[in-house]
């Protein structure tokens, strides 16, 4: 973590993990951000190896709601792709299929 006047850099890999999976981890991160005095937050994604769509989605939701100014840096290509995928999903929510499903009864062969 590096502080420069009202700005702070948060290394996500150190605070959470190199592999970002959980929505609740995003909520914890933003609770932490809320507790900081700084108003300009830089989230540093250096060293992140993987990210789930759920993490990326929750991050974008929380960032949108945040009062503080949050910017990202050092986003690895695969992580950037996930954020872009989630943004596309947000712009084009899909319809749930209404096609009937085939259901079989389970019969034990023993």
């Amino acid at each position: 973590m590096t502080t420069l006047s009202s700005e702070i850099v948060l290394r996500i890999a150190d605070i959470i993990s190199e592999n970002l999976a959980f929505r609740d981890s995003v909520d914890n991160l933003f609770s932490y951000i809320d507790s900081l005095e700084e108003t300009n937050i830089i989230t540093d994604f250096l060293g992140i190896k993987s990210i789930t769509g759920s993490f990326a989605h929750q991050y974008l939701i929380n960032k949108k709601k945040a009062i503080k100014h949050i910017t990202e840096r050092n986003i690895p290509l695969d992580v950037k792709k996930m954020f872009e995928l989630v943004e596309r999903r947000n712009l084009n929510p899909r319809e749930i299929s209404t096609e009937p499903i085939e259901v079989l009864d389970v019969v034990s062969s023993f």
Partner: protein
Amino acid sequence: MEFNESDLGREYLKFCQLRNNAHHTKKMDLSNIDWFYPTNLLPLGIFIKTNRDISVIPPSSSEVLSFYNIITKGKRHVSSRSSYHPIAEIPLDAHQRERMLEPLYAFESDYIGGRNAFAYLIGELVDNVYQHSSFSTAYIMAQKYPKKRFIEISIIDNGISIHGAFKKAGFEFDDTTALSEAIKGRSTKRDRERGFGLISSINLLTKGLDGECLIVSRKGGFIAKGEDKQTFYNMGEYHALNGTLICIRVSYITKTVNIYDYLEQ
């Protein structure tokens, strides 16, 4: 596809038979077991743990007994060189979650389409448990089979089930319909931007990694295998499970899979 045509389905049926016999006889007879897979060992381990009045007749084979003892000990720290990840509790504490999965991420991921594909799959499946099941206990285990060249992972929770999660959100679905709605991408959070976790994981698993998936949640069942085979099941009382069990089996794939080719757009 009949339930017992699937490898995971057959292993789950073995668990059901052992469990139901144990309910009647108050004995869990494992003496004839020739091998365990996570799909039967994980629910068996949890069943034995929560039914202390049932006595266990251990496996006759010393090799199987040794494996059974190791896996059910529930060691927390496992070397990435181990061929197994023993039954481990999924922590309720949000601060321990990411670290808990670290040994699994290192677990042969190079043979499962690369770290990105493997981590995505595990991360989404476990996040689903946290987001929807309202569990008090949940467990995960994994086993790799270098000679057979596949890895199998199981996750079980004692939560409200997929049916219960929809009910909590105001949807009235039976167990199998609830499972199918979840797999089609309907979110229990009533948010059309959500609900991608399960559907995208199954796409990646079956189409990208040529894997197999079994889900049992109360009386609802689902098996996906390969590109096109997806079947839902009424499990009935005999094969029902309180909570939810998710099992995946993935053959070794040494090439790196581009997950974005398979994630729901």
